[in-house]
């Protein structure tokens, strides 16, 4: 009886070891360099007469994980660089807000449920700074649309 238990434990240890071994033989996840600062994002262009561009600096968001915003990154298993928001959220008209494709919605919708997944720009800013901090969450002359909505 005792022997059986020992054999079982030994087998289990061997299996676990094999698992780790297989994992270790996986290629190391790639390291990605974030784009340079001063990245101008303006996908709404052509769908608005106004300049609604946002200057995004990856450096000022360093305290967050890539996956906090690039939320499909897990599927790439670190083998491909994260994709732009616009590769999936590719409906750029601010007037058509149906479904997940709406780019405007992906950037602006605040989910008020606690611990809501996939936060938008405005969601995260609102949680971080409070909804009355108009410099950080306001639509005009704020940290996002710094040159105004015109």
């Amino acid at each position, binding site marked *: 009886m005792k022997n059986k238990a020992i054999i079982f434990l030994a087998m289990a240890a061997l299996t676990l070891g094999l698992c780790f071994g297989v994992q270790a033989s996986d290629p190391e996840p790639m390291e990605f360099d974030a784009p340079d600062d001063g990245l101008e994002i303006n996908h709404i262009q052509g769908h608005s007469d106004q300049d609604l561009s946002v200057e995004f600096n990856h450096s000022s968001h360093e305290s967050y994980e890539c996956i906090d915003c690039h939320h499909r990154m897990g599927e790439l298993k670190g083998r491909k660089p994260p994709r732009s928001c616009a590769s999936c959220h590719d409906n750029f008209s*601010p007037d058509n807000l149906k479904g997940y494709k709406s780019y*405007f919605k992906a950037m602006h*919708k605040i989910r*008020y449920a606690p611990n809501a997944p996939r936060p938008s720009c405005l969601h995260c800013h609102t949680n971080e700074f409070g*909804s009355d901090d108009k410099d950080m969450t*306001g*639509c005009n*002359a704020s940290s996002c649309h710094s*040159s105004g909505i015109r």
Partner: protein
Amino acid sequence: MNGKSFFVDLTLCTACRGCQVACKQWKDLPAEQTRNLGSHQNPADLSAKTLRLVRFNEGRDEKGKLRWNFFPEQCRHCIEPPCKYMLNMYRSDAVDQDAQTGAVVYNEAVRLAKSNRLEPDQICPYNVPRKNMETGQWTKCDMCIDRVKDGLKPACVTSCPTGTMNFGDREAMLELASKRLAEVKKTRPDSYLADPESVRVIYLCESQAENYHTHLMADAGQKKAILAQARPQKQSRREFLTGRFSFNTPKV
């Protein structure tokens, strides 16, 4: 057909507040508790019960002369309304832009969830819409769409005795605005129109935007100027305290 527009000639406004009262009467809105804040402006801010407000502001012009500026504030009925995009994310029928007039109209039946804590600055570059805290309904000026559809002018325009408020087809208003601007410029060369391309309420201003109100224009420049004036230079707590209690503190 380019819809309707207002032309508001601030050089003529005497702050009689006829428009403010007319708005309240036509919309049948209740009074609200106010108190004296040391200004003729009353109430202190727009609210769900006050959709239109004449703001009183004192400011100095470039020569240092004191000027008393009056600014009858209302929804600008943006050509591309951010509030429509923002509120319609939560309820697709919350805001509608009338195809005929261009008026941005909030659906009175829509009440957003209690948990929705959007602030006016998050949905409007001019900080105009207000939420009725009791019902959760967002409100603002609707261009008196009921009157306009019947061929009447909005209540505020009808009540204006000075010619400050004008209303009509957009082309006519833009033409009137540029004609009037040229005239005013003869005596006040720094006059300008506030955001005429992007809104349907075109203000003709003779003083710097910040002398009227913080949100006269949807432009970052004026805001930066205001902040630069209002914010003291960075100083340490020690500097602040010593500077305050001694006149001869050397600057570090």
